[in-house]
C-alpha cells in the first residue's frame, strides 16, 4: 500500500493535448475517484498511472518512488478492467494465480493466496470454472480476485461496474466499499457515474477536457462546486440553474425570482454580488433546497416562501419531484409526497438559499468564493 502523486502530468497525441497538466496526490489507503464525461481523459490518466501509456510530461510517484518511466509490471499495481479481461483459456483459479506465477511465487504459496482471495470474495466454488461459464457478477468478482491476489501497492479500477445490471451494480458497489474498509488499500477508481463517485470515494477528482475541475471530498464537491460544470455534473437530479437578476434592496444585493409573483431572495454572501447589481447571474440551487413549506424552517434567514405553478409531478416514492418554471428556466423541486401538488395548480414552496451558489453566466465561474 502506498500513496500516489501525480505531478503536472501532460499527455499529447500529436497536436491534441489529452491531459493538460494533472496534479493529484492521495494518501495511503485513500479511495480516489476520477469522474467525468466520456472523453475527459480519465481513462488516459488511469492508463498512465498503470504505465500502459507513456506520459508526455510530468511525473508519477507511487510510494514516493518516481515510476514515470517504469514498466507496468514493475510498478506493483493491479487493475480491474471494464471488460474484466479474464484470460478465457484459464480457469478461475489459474486466472487469479497467473500474476503470482509470473512473479515466480512457489506453487504452495499461490494456492494459499488463491484460497484466501476466493474466500474473501466468496468464489471458492467457482475455482474450476472457465470465465465463459460465469455470470457477469461472478466475472466481476474474479477480476477483483485477480487484483487482490498479488497484494499490490495500488489498485486501479477502470469502470468496473458499468457492464453489470442496475441491481447488481448497487450490490457490488457496496461490496467494494466494504472491501476497501476491510483492507485499507489505496484505490484509484474511474467512473462516469456520479452516484458511484459520491458513494465510494474518500476524494473525488472531477475531470473535463483533460483538466481536473475540482479535487475534494464528496461533500465538498456536492456543497461547494468549483464551477458550473462540477455543479451540474454531480448530483441527481441535477442542480437547478436559474438565471436571476441581481437587485439591491436596502443596500444588500438580492436575487430576483419571478414565479407567479416576483420576490427577491437573500444570499448568504451578498458582498460577492456587489459588482453584479443590475446584471444577471446563474443561481445554483439543489432540488432538495426547494421544498414544501416546513414549519421548523419558518423565520430562518435565507428562507423564502413563494407561489409556484406546478407543471408536472414525478412521484419517486420517498419524495415527489415537482417541475416548475422560474425566470423562464425549468427547475426541479423535491417535496414530501403527502404535499398536495396537482399539475397546473399554484402552490406555496419554500426556497432555502443558505447553500445556494452563484455562477457567472458566460464563463461558468463560481462568483461567491
Amino acid at each position, binding site marked *: 500500500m502506498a500513496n500516489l502523486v501525480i505531478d503536472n502530468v501532460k499527455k499529447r497525441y500529436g497536436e491534441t493535448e489529452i491531459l493538460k497538466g494533472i496534479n493529484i496526490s492521495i494518501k495511503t489507503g485513500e479511495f480516489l475517484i476520477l469522474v467525468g464525461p466520456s472523453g475527459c481523459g480519465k481513462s488516459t490518466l488511469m492508463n498512465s498511472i498503470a504505465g500502459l501509456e507513456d506520459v508526455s510530461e510530468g511525473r508519477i510517484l507511487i510510494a514516493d518512488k518516481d515510476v514515470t518511466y517504469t514498466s507496468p509490471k514493475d510498478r506493483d499495481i493491479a487493475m480491474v478492467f471494464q471488460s474484466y479481461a479474464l484470460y478465457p483459456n484459464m480457469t478461475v483459479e489459474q486466472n487469479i494465480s*497467473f500474476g503470482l506465477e509470473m512473479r515466480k511465487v512457489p506453487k504452495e504459496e499461490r494456492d494459499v493466496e488463491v484460497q484466501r482471495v476466493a474466500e474473501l470474495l466468496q468464489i471458492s466454488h467457482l475455482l474450476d470454472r472457465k470465465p465463459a461459464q460465469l455470470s457477469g457478477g461472478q466475472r466481476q468478482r474474479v477480476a477483483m480476485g485477480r487484483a487482490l491476489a498479488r497484494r499490490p501497492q495500488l489498485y486501479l479500477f477502470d469502470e468496473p461496474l458499468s457492464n453489470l445490471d442496475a441491481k447488481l451494480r448497487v450490490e457490488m458497489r457496496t461490496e467494494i466499499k466494504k472491501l476497501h474498509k476491510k483492507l485499507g488499500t489505496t484505490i484509484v477508481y474511474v467512473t462516469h457515474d456520479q452516484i458511484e463517485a459520491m458513494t465510494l470515494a474518500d476524494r473525488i477528482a472531477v475531470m473535463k477536457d483533460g483538466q481536473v475541475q475540482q479535487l475534494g471530498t464528496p461533500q465538498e464537491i456536492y456543497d461547494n462546486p468549483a464551477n458550473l460544470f462540477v455543479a451540474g455534473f454531480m448530483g441527481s437530479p441535477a442542480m437547478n440553474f436559474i438565471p436571476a437578476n441581481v437587485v439591491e434592496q436596502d443596500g444588500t444585493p438580492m436575487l430576483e425570482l419571478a414565479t407567479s409573483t416576483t420576490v427577491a431572495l437573500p444570499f448568504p454572501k451578498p458582498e460577492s454580488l456587489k459588482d453584479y447589481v443590475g446584471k444577471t447571474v446563474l443561481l445554483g440551487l439543489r432540488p432538495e433546497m426547494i421544498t414544501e413549506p416546513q414549519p421548523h424552517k419558518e423565520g430562518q434567514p435565507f428562507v423564502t416562501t413563494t407561489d409556484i405553478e406546478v407543471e408536472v409531478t414525478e412521484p419517486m416514492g420517498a419524495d415527489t419531484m415537482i417541475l416548475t418554471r422560474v425566470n423562464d428556466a425549468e427547475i426541479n423541486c423535491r417535496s414530501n409526497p403527502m404535499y398536495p401538488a396537482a399539475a397546473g395548480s399554484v402552490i406555496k414552496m419554500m426556497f432555502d438559499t443558505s447553500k445556494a451558489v452563484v455562477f457567472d453566466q458566460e464563463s461558468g465561474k463560481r462568483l461567491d468564493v
Partner: protein
Amino acid sequence: MSNKAVGRKTSGLDKALRVALYTVLIVVAAFYLMPFIVMLLTSLKDVEEIRTGTLLSLPASLNFDSWSKAWSSACTGGSCGGISPYFMNSFQIVLPAVAISTLVGALNGYVISLWKFRGSDFFFAAMLVGCFIPFQVILLPMAQTLGWLGIANTTSGLVFVHVVYGIAFTTLFFRNFYQSIPGELVKAARLDGAGFFTIFYRIILPVSTPIIVVTVIWQFTQIWNDFLFGVAFSGFDTQPVTVALNNLVNTSFGGKEYNVDMAAAIIAALPTLAVYVFAGKYFVRGLTAGAVKG
C-alpha cells in the same frame, strides 16, 4: 384444431416439389463428382479395358496394379521409381513451410492487432499487397535470391519460397482473428507481469485454435498443390509430387497408360483430401469466427 396446426399438411404439390428439389441436388452433386468418379474408375481398369470401354463403364474386376505402378515403378522423366520419392519430397517441403509460415503469421497478427506501433497499420497494408502479387512476378527475383542464399534447387529453398509467399496470407488471417480479442486482455497480462512472448504463448495462442486450423488447411493446400514454384526452384531430387505427376503423364514409353496417370493423380491429391475431411469442420467454423465473434 391446435393439434392439426402442429404437423404441417403436405399436399401432393409440396411432395412433387420436394422430389424435384432432391433430384436436382443429386444430379448437380453427381456432376461435380464426375471427374473424380471417372478418375477412380479409370485407375481400376487395365489398358485394354480403357481402350474398348467407355469413360463410365465399370471395371471388370478390382485391379490395383496401376496404383502400385504409379507409386513405385512408373517412369517420371529419367527415373522409373514411381511417384513415391516425390510424394515424400512434398511432405518435406510442406510440413516445415506450413509450420513456419503459420507461426510467423500468428506472431505478425499478434503484433499488428495487439501491440500497435507507429506505422503498424501501414505495415499491415503493405503485407496485404503481398496477397495480390502473382506467382510469375517473383520467379526471377526469387531465383536470384535463392542463388545468393546458396539454397537453389534444394528442399530448404522451396520451404523458404513458400514461407515468404505464404506469410502475407497467414498474417492476414491471424490479424483479422486477433482484432476481435480485446486489448484489455494484453494490458491485464502486462500488469500481471507477463512479457511479450509469455502473453503470446500462454494467453493468445490457446484461444487461436480455429484460426490455426484455417491457416494450416489453407497453407497445406496451397503448398501441396503448388506446381510453378516446384517446377521452377526444385532440383532433380527435390521435385514435389505435382511436378513428378506432370512428368509421369508426359513421359511416354509405348502406349499411354491412363490408368497409371489417374492413380498417380489420385495419390497426389489424397493428402489435401484427408486434411479437408479431418479438419473441414473447423475450417468453416474458423472462417465465420470473426464474423459472429466467439
